[in-house]
């Protein structure tokens, strides 16, 4: 018999995951036996560091002086006027060092790697932002860094590939499967299972086996903690709604987590609906997937009736993933957060609108969140506040956008 579920209002979201790394039915450790002991060791180390004031102080110092935190909340006045609804506020993670929220996590994990005495860093990357953020922290600590990246993504994110190389990392093209993020993750797991004794695997999203969903969430939760305090200080209240894009879901959980127990704040995750969920060409794991097991955890996955993971589509490489972090799966089932699809076309429209009204080029991933913020703002009265995580900047995407719009650079 299944244990009785708590009703949504009885849940304290700070209680998750449990000691087994479970968020309700999701999460856990679904890995080859070779990785069981290394993950146990990582869990022990991380839980120790999590409660270690010296570790937390060093992390806070690096976030301030190296990453450039706190990032501001910017009120997008012209965008809001253009939309004609509630005010849209942007949490400016695009202003971080390396240009996205990804650095929050890699700075933290690099400190964990150093504590564990590992000499080699590996990472997987989709859009390249996590790869750049991993190469950055590896360079800073003088560690070898190998980044796995799908061939499709290498082609569409050439600037980030070059940035990683400039930072001294080796970028390994992955040609198996769909040649995107999921295949890069498979290949990174294969490297890790082979070199686990000296290698630290920096997973870039809130997926993977325990303790990664916990650890990556903790390191990104600074976004929501800061934003919550900034809202109270600068606006005297919490926002009516918050939104972020969801691929694996690290920037989204980073923003959402501090607000989960604030039941009056509406939480909406924007998944990549690609060419439309009905077309089958999308990456909306929560909106259109089903519970399964992928990359070390139980979560919502996009797969066929034979259980084979299906190829996904999104204009944005960072959202092009057939799974999602287990905490998001939990939040969907509990009803605390809603997950909706935003199409390529809607994201592009939002990208242009933000660029022209506010002078900000958003990453294509973040453009999905902007599109969702626009929808939410239209539903709310003018005095409403919608807080949107602008998780990364768009410089990396200019070639993709030009190609889509038939412009030769």
């Amino acid at each position, binding site marked *: 018999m299944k244990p009785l579920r708590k009703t949504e209002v009885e849940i304290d979201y700070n209680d998750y995951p449990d000691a087994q790394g479970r968020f309700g039915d999701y999460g856990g450790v*679904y890995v080859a036996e*070779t990785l*069981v002991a290394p993950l146990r060791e990582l869990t022990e180390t991380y839980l120790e560091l999590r409660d270690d004031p010296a570790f937390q102080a060093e992390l806070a110092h690096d976030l301030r002086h190296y990453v450039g935190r706190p990032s501001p909340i910017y009120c997008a006045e012209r965008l809001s006027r253009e939309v004609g609804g509630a005010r849209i506020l942007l949490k400016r993670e695009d202003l971080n060092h390396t240009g996205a929220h990804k650095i929050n996590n890699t700075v933290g994990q690099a400190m964990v790697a150093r504590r564990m005495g590992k000499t080699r860093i590996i990472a997987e990357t989709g859009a390249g932002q996590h790869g750049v953020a991993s190469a950055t922290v590896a360079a800073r600590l003088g560690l070898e860094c190998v980044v796995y990246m799908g061939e499709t993504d290498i082609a569409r994110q050439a600037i980030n590939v070059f940035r990683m190389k400039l930072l001294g990392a080796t970028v390994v093209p992955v040609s198996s499967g769909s040649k995107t993020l999921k295949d890069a993750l498979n290949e990174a797991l294969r490297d890790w299972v*082979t070199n686990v004794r000296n290698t630290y695997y920096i997973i870039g999203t809130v997926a993977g086996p325990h303790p990664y969903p916990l650890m990556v969430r903790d390191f990104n939760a600074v976004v929501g903690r800061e934003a919550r305090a900034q809202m109270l200080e600068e606006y005297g209240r919490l926002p009516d709604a918050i939104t972020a894009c969801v691929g694996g879901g690290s920037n989204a959980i980073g923003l959402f987590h501090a607000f989960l127990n604030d039941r009056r704040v509406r939480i909406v995750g924007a998944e990549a609906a690609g060419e439309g969920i009905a077309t089958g060409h999308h990456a909306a794991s929560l909106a259109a997937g089903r519970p*399964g097991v992928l990359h070390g955890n139980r979560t919502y996955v996009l797969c066929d009736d034979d259980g084979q993971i299906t190829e996904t589509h999104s204009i944005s490489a960072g959202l092009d993933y057939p799974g999602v972090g287990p905490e998001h799966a939990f939040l969907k089932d509990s009803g605390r957060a809603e997950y909706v699809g935003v199409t390529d076309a809607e994201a592009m429209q939002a990208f242009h609108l933000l660029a022209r009204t506010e002078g900000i080029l958003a990453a294509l991933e973040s453009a999905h969140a902007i599109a969702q913020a626009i929808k939410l703002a239209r539903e709310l009265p003018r005095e409403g506040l919608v807080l949107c995580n602008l998780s990364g900047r768009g410089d990396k995407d200019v070639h993709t956008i030009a190609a889509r719009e038939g412009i030769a650079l």
Partner: protein
Amino acid sequence: MNRIEQRFAELRGSRRTGLIPFVTAGDPHAEVAAAVDLLHALVDAGADLIELGMPFSDPMADGPVIQRANERALSRHVGLTQVLAIARGFRQRDAGTPLVLMGYLNPIEIRGFERFAGEAATAGVDALLLVDAPQDDAAAVAALAAYGLHLIRLVAPTTEPARMETLARRASGFLYFVSITGTTGAARADAGAIAAQVAALRRQSAVPVAVGFGIRDAADALAFADCADAVVIGSALVDDLQHAHDAADACARAARFIRPIRAALDARKAA
């Protein structure tokens, strides 16, 4: 006595080391009849147990050779339905050779774990080896046991001693020692490096211990015959079979591959 116990008892009785070839279902040929013939050819050439891979789109613990075998099988639409049909077909002509299905959890979860356990048992499967399933999942073990199926536990070079003892105590069917820290077939296994661990595992375990990952030929098999009850050969065989130009050639290749290994293992016993 179930088929796995029966077979290992026979091996012990004749002081032989077990030989367990691995092939991916639907590779090199997708037709059920061709796949069944291939399994019979492996048995005729000297296989004691058969390990049959269930294709999966994201085989994270497998090296390039078996990854590509999975991709080939999937491109021919071979999934669990075909795997079960192959098992049924094999069982019609072979009542004694244990059949172990190896794969990943997602396809089974999507089909329904209990449903699949029932179907596999009915098809004549003896055990499941699930790379990414938690080995201490009591509910899964119970669901399999209800249908008389074994969950084959894996032990790796990184497995800590206390966990190794627990796995040995709970073991069912046989234990699978992963001989290299890495993916299937990616490196040549070194018997010297793991002999002590395998010996310790055998002392703790009431069931036999098979060794696999990175065992390629007769020389490798012989190196592990001193420490293990059985050896598994996968990638090297799959690599050879992919060059077969038809189903009959696949069977001929299987026989040519297995016979010298069988002969080497049996000659060792005689010596």
